[in-house]
């Protein structure tokens, strides 16, 4: 077993490989790490590369692949790509949940038999507050989409990104996701990270690389330390958490990641529980 394989097996490195399928999005969220929106330059990983990376990842000992963006479902043939990826590794795909019209639902039917979970963003139990950060009609579209996805046998998690934690709001939000059919184990809560648009807006918590779990993340720009790393601030890619520009063979960024992990000071584990 190679050193990176051992590190993956020991849980020193995260066992899910993240892939940024794209950077563009139909929404313009106030805290978006990647300053995504409808008008940003199209930077995408092509599907064949994503599948090859997943195959390499499986050989190296990764157990899952995460697909994020941007909004992955803006990529043509994303449902078909997810099915293909799920034949290689367990898939988690992050989505804003606003694009699931009838035609897309029909194409997503095969996902019910595939090892694919959708993680849908929902930030607040009040539509007005939620939509203030995520855009008009976001709340309505999400609360309609989640039960519809579950009804079709597709696994769903809810992800909540918080600027400030409020116990009462959280209680109501949890009641809401349970009503929608998503259990507590499938509800992920995390803070706004002060990178990308959140930095410009002076929102969220400052996270050093030591605060972020090492989860290898591949984008069209290279390989990064974590899915919170390939951020864009004022239109410029942040390179502070870049590992390598070379992404294939995957062993290369994985070796770089291990070198960085090895150079971390003792006891410098993550403190913010950002996942």
């Amino acid at each position, binding site marked *: 077993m190679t050193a990176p394989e051992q590190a993956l097996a020991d849980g020193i490195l995260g066992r899910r490989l993240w892939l940024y399928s794209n950077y563009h999005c139909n929404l313009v969220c106030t805290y978006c790490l990647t300053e995504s929106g409808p008008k940003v330059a199209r930077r995408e990983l092509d599907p064949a590369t994503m599948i090859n990376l997943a195959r390499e990842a499986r050989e190296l000992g990764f157990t899952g692949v995460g697909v994020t963006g941007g909004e992955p479902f803006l990529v043509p043939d994303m449902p078909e790509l997810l099915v293909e990826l799920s034949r290689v590794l367990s898939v988690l795909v992050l989505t804003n949940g606003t694009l699931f019209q009838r035609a897309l639902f029909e194409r997503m039917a095969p996902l019910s038999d595939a090892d694919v979970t959708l993680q849908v963003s929902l930030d607040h139990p009040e539509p007005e507050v939620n939509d203030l950060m995520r855009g008009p009609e976001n709340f309505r579209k999400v609360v309609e989409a989640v039960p519809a996805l579950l009804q079709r046998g597709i696994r769903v998690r809810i992800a909540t990104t918080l600027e400030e934690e409020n116990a009462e709001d959280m209680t109501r939000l949890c009641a809401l996701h349970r009503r929608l059919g998503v259990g507590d184990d499938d509800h992920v809560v995390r803070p706004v990270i002060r990178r990308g648009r959140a930095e410009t807006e002076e929102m969220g918590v400052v996270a050093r*690389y030591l605060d972020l779990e090492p989860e290898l993340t591949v984008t069209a720009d290279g390989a990064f*330390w974590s899915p919170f790393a390939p951020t864009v601030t004022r239109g410029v890619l*942040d*390179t*502070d*958490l*870049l*590992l*390598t*520009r*070379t992404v294939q063979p995957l062993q*290369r960024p994985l070796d*770089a990641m291990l*070198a*960085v992990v090895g*150079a971390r000071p003792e006891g410098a584990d993550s403190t913010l529980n950002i996942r």
Partner: protein
Amino acid sequence: MTPRTALGPSAAPRIDLVDARSAPLLARPYFAAGDPGPIVASLAQVPELLGPTLPFLGSVLGPSWISLRDKEIVILRTSAVMGCRYCTEAHTVVGLDAGLTLDEVRALRGELPLEDAFSDAGERALVNWCDAVAQGVEADIEQARPRLGGSDAQVVELTLLVATTVMLNRYATALGLPTSRDVRERLVREGL
């Protein structure tokens, strides 16, 4: 053979030079002691290149069994022949610090006849070798080899030094790497 072009002023670099704040994880150690200079700051755009490239450059350009004076003659002359402003200016200062005189520096930069500055025939042969290898003309190299003398080991190391300098000359010129302020100030003080 004389240097190709007069040296022009620094223009803006053709790429963004990475600073400490945006330094990728593998590049951070190079920024720990301050500004690492434009070669590192440019290579940091592709951080996985730093690991293999810098030790190589250090091995070829840094201290070795060939004297520092000979090495700086080679680097400065090659850089001047190749018309590389960045490397010529930087190694004018390094050359002076290595013990080259102002006249020797000027001669290597093509501003004085070689014979006026270098009385040692061996050093003139070394300059001649640099010119021939940098220009890459087979007939010139053939002529320059017997004059250079030395062991095969010396020829190998000196030739790798010329070749590596040519590589850096192309790199620095193509990317428009800027001369650092302290080098500029020193050149002004020295009247260069």
